[in-house]
C-alpha cells in the first residue's frame, strides 16, 4: 500500500514536471523568443521535458500492462475459486505490490486448506456419530424391558416399542413433549421428575411400580438413572421397567410351599410326639388303649414318610431330575396288577371292585413303576372315599381316532364339591368336606397329575357329582 502510494506520488511529480516544461516552451514561443534564437539552456530544458514526457509514457504503459495482468489473474481466481500466486510476467513495476499480495494469498490458501481438512474431519465424525446413534437406538429398541429417556426439561427424547406399548404413548408423536402430557401414569411422571431433581445426590434407584397392562395388574421394577452430561449437569433421566410379576408370583409360591410343607409335616409329627409323651407319662393304664396309641404312632409315622416321599417326588419331577425308564407296556396289564392288590383294601372296606378292561395289545411308552403308582393312587383314593357297599369300577379302553389309551377310575363315593373341583390337583389342597373320610397328604393327586402330564405327556381329568361319585380319567398316547 505504501509502495503504491509512493509510486503514485512519483508519477504525479513527473507528470507535473512534463506539464511545466511544455508550458514553459509554449510561453517562450508565444513571446517570440524562439524565433529570435533559442538559448542553449532553454533547448536543453525542452529536451529534458520531452524526454521526461516520453519516459512517463513508457512508464505509464508498463504500469498499466502490469495492473491489467494482475487484474486478469485476480478475475481468473475469482472465476475458478482457486487462490494462486499473482505473476507479473517479467514486469517488475508492481513487484512491491505483488510480493505481499502473494504472501497474503499463500496464507489465505493454507488457512482454507486447513479449514477444508477440519471440515472433512467433522463430516466423518458426524457420520460416525449418526451411525452410533442409530446403533444405540437399535439396541434400545431390541430390549424387551421398557426403556424411556427424558431430557433436562422432562421431555420425552427416546423410548423403545416396549415402553410405548406399556405406557400407552407413541414416540413419533411424543418426542419433545413433556412427560406429564405424554404419559398417562402420574406416579411414573413423579418418579422421573424426582430422579432428575435429586440428580447427582442419588445416581440410581430401583422402585417397584404397578401398571395395569392389557387388563392385568403387573408389577415392574423401575430402574431410574440420571444422565449426567458435560459440566456435571443432569441432562436427563433413563427409566427401565422390568416386569417382575412372575418372579414375585414364584417367590410367593415358594414361600407358600415351604409354609405348607412345614405345616403338613408338623401335623403328623405333633400326633406322634403327643402320643409318645402320653405313653411315657403313664397316662394310659390299659393294654388296649396303649395298643391303639402304638397303632396311631405307626400310622402317623407312615403318613409322615409318604408325605416326605411325595414332596421329594414332586420336587424331582418339577426340577426334571427324576429318573424315568420308559418302555412299551400295556395300560390294561398295569390296571390288572393294581386291581389284584387293591382287592384286599376293597374287601376290607366292603366296596365292590368292578373291571372292564380293553385287550392288552395296545401299548404306551411309560415308566412301569410310575404308571403303577398313578393307577394305584387313583384306585386307592376311590376306595377310601367310597362308603361300604359302594362300587369302584376300573375300565381301560383305547380311542383309536385320538390315538390314546384310557384308564378310567369311577366310584360311587362322596364326590367332590363343585367349588373344590378346580383345586384338587393343587399342592396340599384337601377337600374339607371329605376330610373325615380319609387322611391324606394333600399331595397324592398333585403327584399323579405330574406323573401323567409332565412325565408321560398324557392327560388326567376329573368329573364329579357331589354325593354321587367321581371319575378320574388317565389318557396316554398309544405307541404305534
Amino acid at each position: 500500500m505504501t509502495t503504491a502510494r509512493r509510486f503514485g506520488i512519483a508519477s504525479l511529480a513527473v507528470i507535473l514536471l512534463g506539464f511545466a516544461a511544455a508550458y514553459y516552451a509554449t510561453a517562450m514561443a508565444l513571446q517570440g523568443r524562439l524565433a529570435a534564437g533559442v538559448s542553449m539552456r532553454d533547448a536543453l530544458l525542452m529536451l529534458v521535458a520531452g524526454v521526461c514526457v516520453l519516459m512517463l509514457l513508457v512508464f505509464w504503459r508498463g504500469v498499466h500492462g502490469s495492473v491489467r495482468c494482475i487484474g486478469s489473474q485476480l478475475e481468473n481466481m475469482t472465476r475458478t475459486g482457486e487462490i494462486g500466486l499473482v505473476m507479473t510476467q517479467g514486469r517488475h513495476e508492481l513487484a512491491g505490490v505483488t510480493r505481499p499480495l502473494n504472501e497474503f494469498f499463500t496464507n489465505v490458501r493454507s488457512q482454507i486448506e486447513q479449514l477444508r481438512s477440519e471440515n472433512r474431519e467433522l463430516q466423518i465424525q458426524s457420520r460416525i456419530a449418526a451411525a452410533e446413534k442409530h446403533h444405540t437406538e437399535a439396541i434400545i429398541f431390541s430390549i424387551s424391558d421398557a426403556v424411556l429417556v427424558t431430557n433436562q426439561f422432562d421431555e420425552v427424547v427416546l423410548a423403545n416399542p416396549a415402553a410405548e406399548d406399556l405406557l400407552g404413548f407413541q414416540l413419533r408423536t411424543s418426542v419433545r413433549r413433556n412427560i406429564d402430557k405424554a404419559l398417562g401414569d402420574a406416579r411414573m411422571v413423579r418418579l422421573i421428575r424426582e430422579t432428575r431433581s435429586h440428580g447427582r445426590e442419588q445416581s440410581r434407584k430401583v422402585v417397584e411400580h404397578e401398571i395395569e397392562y392389557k387388563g392385568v395388574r403387573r408389577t415392574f421394577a423401575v430402574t431410574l438413572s440420571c444422565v449426567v452430561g458435560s459440566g456435571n449437569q443432569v441432562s436427563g433421566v433413563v427409566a427401565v421397567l422390568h416386569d417382575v410379576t412372575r418372579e414375585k408370583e414364584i417367590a410367593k409360591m415358594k414361600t407358600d410351599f415351604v409354609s405348607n410343607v412345614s405345616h403338613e409335616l408338623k401335623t403328623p409329627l405333633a400326633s406322634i410326639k403327643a402320643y409318645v409323651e402320653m405313653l411315657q407319662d403313664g397316662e394310659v393304664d390299659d393294654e388296649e388303649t396303649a395298643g391303639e396309641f402304638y397303632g396311631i404312632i405307626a400310622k402317623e409315622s407312615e403318613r409322615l414318610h409318604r408325605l416326605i416321599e411325595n414332596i421329594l417326588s414332586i420336587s424331582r419331577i418339577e426340577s426334571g431330575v427324576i429318573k424315568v425308564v420308559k418302555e412299551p407296556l400295556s395300560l390294561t396289564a398295569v390296571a390288572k396288577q393294581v386291581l389284584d392288590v387293591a382287592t384286599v383294601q376293597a374287601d376290607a372296606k366292603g366296596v365292590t371292585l368292578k373291571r372292564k378292561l380293553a385287550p392288552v395289545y395296545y401299548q404306551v411308552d411309560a415308566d412301569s413303576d410310575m404308571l403303577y403308582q398313578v393307577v394305584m393312587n387313583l384306585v386307592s383314593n376311590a376306595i377310601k372315599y367310597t362308603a361300604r357297599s359302594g362300587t369302584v369300577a376300573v375300565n381301560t379302553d383305547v380311542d383309536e381316532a385320538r390315538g390314546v389309551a384310557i384308564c378310567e377310575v369311577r366310584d360311587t363315593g362322596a364326590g367332590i364339591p363343585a367349588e373344590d373341583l378346580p383345586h384338587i390337583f393343587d399342592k396340599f389342597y384337601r377337600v374339607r368336606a371329605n376330610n373325615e373320610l380319609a387322611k391324606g397328604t394333600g399331595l397324592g393327586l398333585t403327584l399323579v397329575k405330574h406323573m401323567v402330564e409332565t412325565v408321560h405327556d398324557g392327560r388326567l381329568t376329573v368329573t364329579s357329582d357331589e354325593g354321587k361319585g367321581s371319575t378320574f380319567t388317565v389318557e396316554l398316547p398309544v405307541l404305534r
Partner: protein
Amino acid sequence: MSKNVLVVDDEAHILHVVSMKLRNAGYAVTTAMDGEEALELCRAEPPDLLITDYQMPLLSGVELCKALRRNEQTRDIPAIMLTARGFDIDAEETRQAGITVVLSKPFSPREMRRAVDDLLNNGHDARGAGVMR
C-alpha cells in the same frame, strides 16, 4: 365341680390326646372340629378355658377368639392356641384376640396341661371355682 375346657381342632388325633390328658388331670372336656361349632358351644355354655388350633375350616382359631371377645358372655374366656404355623402367626393379632398362650406343634401335652393349670388357677377365671385333679 371340675372346670370345663373346650378343645377345638380339625385333627382328630390332637383332639383325642388333648382331651385325654385334660380328663386325666380332672378337667371336664368338650370338643369341636371347627371354629363355628366351637363358637356355638361357647355361646350355649361358656367354658372356663378354650384350647384352639390356628388353622381350621370355616373359622380360624384367631377369628374364633375375636368373635368370643365381641360377646359379653364369652369375652373373658382365657384361650390357648396350638399351631403348626409358627412363622405365620401375627403376635399382635394374637394378643388382640385375647390369646394368652401360643403352643407350637409338635407340642408337649405335659406343657399344655401346665399352661391350662396356670391359667385356671391364677385368677384368669372370673368364676373362681377350684380345680379337681
